[in-house]
């Protein structure tokens, strides 16, 4: 019990940087560059933490508090995800509802901070962010409910590890739907380009233009935590040894998480970003996959394991 707690907390402090670093490295390799060190995101955060923030005269305390609300909610959602493929920090019935609403709280905090600056660009980014997130919201419920119906349980972790390695079709649909969700939520191509320099085309990045110093570090770490939570969901679904609590399960989990990061980086390096008008259609693919997963889950539960 204590071992799994420690493993979860240790992974929370280390793996997010590694995943972000891997994505950066993969993108660099695809474009023929050597790329930064794997832990470069961690060095960036340390550098930001040493700086002092500057606030716009337009802003209110909302702007100063929001980044830390975002970070807290990211931690709050990561707590229920089986980060190392075994018991999560917390698990209770219908915890995936909590997961979704906590993410929404963090998003609302970021949007309010963006609107607090009075900048047109930040307003634009926050409108896009909320619109996409709105369409995406049902995906997690569809996938979660599909897994719950199939397994006859009510919380995320047992539903994820139930019949590990079985129900392949359901798992494929769920993984693909979650992958798209992850791309949208963590501002990845083809939905959003995290490294663009044109404010007009940004979604997520434009909302944090005015944050600086430790606040920016909090946002950066929060985003990486969300990335980690999402990859851990996918990795647990794919991990045939998930739920056993062994070292092997944790190793496979880490490898699979890194694999998800590699795929994110690869897609990002090879695919052009979608027109903004097409993003809702891309999200509807995830909705469709979630719907198929739900059908498979209900049907599978009725047919018996």
């Amino acid at each position: 019990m204590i071992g799994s707690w420690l493993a979860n907390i240790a992974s929370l402090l280390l793996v997010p940087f590694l995943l972000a670093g891997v994505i950066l490295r993969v993108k660099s390799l695809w474009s023929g560059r050597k790329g930064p060190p794997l832990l470069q995101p961690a060095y960036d955060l340390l550098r930001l933490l040493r700086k002092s923030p500057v606030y716009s005269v337009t802003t209110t305390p909302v702007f100063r508090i929001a980044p830390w609300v975002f970070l807290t909610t990211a931690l709050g959602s990561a707590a229920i995800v089986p980060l190392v493929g075994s018991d999560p920090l917390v698990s209770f019935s219908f915890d995936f509802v909590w997961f979704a609403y906590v993410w929404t709280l963090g998003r609302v905090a970021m949007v309010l901070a963006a609107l607090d600056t009075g900048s047109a660009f930040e307003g634009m980014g926050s409108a896009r962010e909320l619109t996409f997130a709105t369409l995406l919201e049902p995906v997690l419920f569809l996938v979660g409910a599909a897994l719950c119906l199939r397994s006859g349980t009510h919380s995320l972790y047992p539903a994820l590890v139930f019949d590990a390695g079985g129900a392949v079709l359901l798992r494929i649909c769920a993984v693909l739907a979650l992958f798209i969700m992850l791309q949208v939520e963590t501002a990845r191509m083809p939905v959003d380009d995290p490294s663009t320099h044109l404010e007009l085309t940004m979604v997520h990045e434009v909302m944090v233009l005015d944050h600086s110093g430790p606040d920016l570090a909090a946002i950066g770490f929060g985003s990486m935590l969300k990335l980690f939570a999402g990859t851990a969901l996918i990795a647990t679904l794919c991990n045939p040894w998930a739920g056993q609590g062994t070292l092997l399960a944790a190793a496979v989990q880490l490898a699979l998480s890194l694999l998800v990061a590699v795929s994110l980086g690869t897609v990002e390096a090879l695919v052009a970003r979608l027109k903004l008008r097409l993003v809702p259609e891309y999200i509807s693919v995830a909705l469709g996959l979630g719907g198929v997963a739900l059908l498979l889950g209900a049907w599978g539960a009725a047919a018996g394991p």
Partner: protein
Amino acid sequence: MDSSVSSAFLLSLPVLVVGAAIAVALRSNRASAAVSLVTQAVAAVLVLGGVWPCLRGGKALQLVWPWPPPIGTITFRVDALGAFFLAWSLPMTFLGTVYAIGYLRPYFARGRHGGPHFALLNLIAVSFVLIYSVQNALVFLLGWEIAAVAAWLLVIWDYRSQKIRFAGFNYLVSTHVGLFVLVAAFMLLHSKTSSMDFHAFGVFLERPSPTRGSLFLLLGIAFALKSAFFPFHTWLPRAHAAAPAHVSALMSGVIHKAGLFGFLRFTLLMGRPEEWMGWTVLAFGTLSALFGVLYTSTQRDLKRLLGYSSTENVGIAAMGLGLGYLGWSWEVPSLVAIGFLGGMLHIFNHAIFKCLSFYAAGAVYRATHTVDMERLGGLAKRLPLSAGAFLVGGLAGSALPPFNGLVSEFIIYSGLLSGSADSPEGNLTLVGAAAVLALVGAISALSIARAFGLVFLGNPRDPSVEVGEEAPPSMLLPIFCHAALALWFGLAPAFGIELVRPVLEQFPIGSQAGQVLAPVDSLAWASRCLAGSLLLVGLLRWWQGRAARRSVTWGCGYTAVSPRMQYTGSSFSEQMARIFDAFTPALRRERIATEIFPQSPGQLATHHADAVELRIFEVLGRAEALVTRASQRIPAHPRFAFAAGLLTLLLIGVLALGVRP
């Protein structure tokens, strides 16, 4: 129960009526307000004292009052359901009256007499005592009508404006359409039972009969109109935008809950429902939630937005009730418990946070004389307390942790996602409803972030709007009470559940209802931890950031930034509205310059109309034109007259034959 307690409870009626009479008669506004407040407080204490045993799970209070015909005997009976509604309706009306004193002060300063207004607020309280306790259909209708007319008169406080009179008239007509349907249902019941007593109605309704279904639909429509369910909601945003803030708050949060009360009352009388009834309630609830929230995302009037949000929230509550219906018809006790608990708790939670939001919007109106989001901005610096209150109300309304809205929605989710339907198709449909609820929650978060961000954050958008002072203490007191309740029932949901439990025990919830509620306990702990950490980081960053360096907002290289360049409300929701454009039709009025060197400035105005209202008038208009054209042709072409006559005969024949078997 001894009769002294029950008569003490009914004593609140004369107290309130006498208070109303004195309030009208008094010259001084201050004295009228004081009389109204004192009588309402006395009535609230009498009622709470009377119904307290019922709230603790005791026996129902009953009092029979002989009365000359045509009424016969009037039975007053406060059971757990009535006690639950009475317990918060009267105190909340009291808080609304406190709010009215501060909100109406500018009117009083200009010499307006407030006596009738306070008297009407007393009458609203009278209607609650009648509706929630009486067992006689005629007296029930009397209470219903008192509430409707009093609310109408309260709405048209600013009756000099034609727009407000129209909104009031619209409300009056709609509520009376609902009344007709309710009267029809009661007449039907009377014809079957030759009694006006609810108990007799219940005896009839419990038996399966062909009229049971139609009565369910009639009553459902009447109560849905009262609570502004989609598609019967069109009067609501108008009325809420026109009324003074405390009236909007009371209407949305408290008065219109009478519709849901009526629905629950007849559910209890009716006994075990049929399955299709459950699906109907669930479908109506889901549609109301979805359409209500879609309209919130495009509004530019803050109070209209909150009005549509009422439709959304009664929809969510009805989803819970529908779930309870389904559980009852499938005989799954855990679903019955979860469904009715979630629904009723949401009714209560909505009353808390919706009043809060309206009160904060009222503070904005009082300070700026507008609630048009496109003209406001940066109010958080001028009205920090109202800003905080609006944020709390909004977050609770979007069911975000750690506030009370999440608790009831979580309970409803736990029923929808529990997989305890009796067939895979049933489970699929319930999960589909949960997915719609997720969408509703996310759109609601968008609307609230948009409303709060535009009104309170950034820079003022319109320099012609003068910002007055922060709300006076009489407005802040109700605001703080409601904000504290929203937080309290989010962190300690057990208290809310305890309030509903005696009502739940009237439904067939079996014995394991306690254990299906266990997830709420875990949720409460999660919320408490989150709230604690948020408080900690919030205070820390607020403290640390006070001395930080200041600069201007980064203009992305552009240096001549002006407040007019901020993102507007319509641009914020443009993408969202485009995705759902079938339901949020945009009306554009534009004059865009076409020449190369335009001589006059162009202009563009967009406005999102209510699709239901628009389509109803479209359809009505088209049908009217069709009938007019057809009837004009009849005298000119005898064969048209012949065809019309033949058609009528055929219709009558088909009806006669169709009714026979």
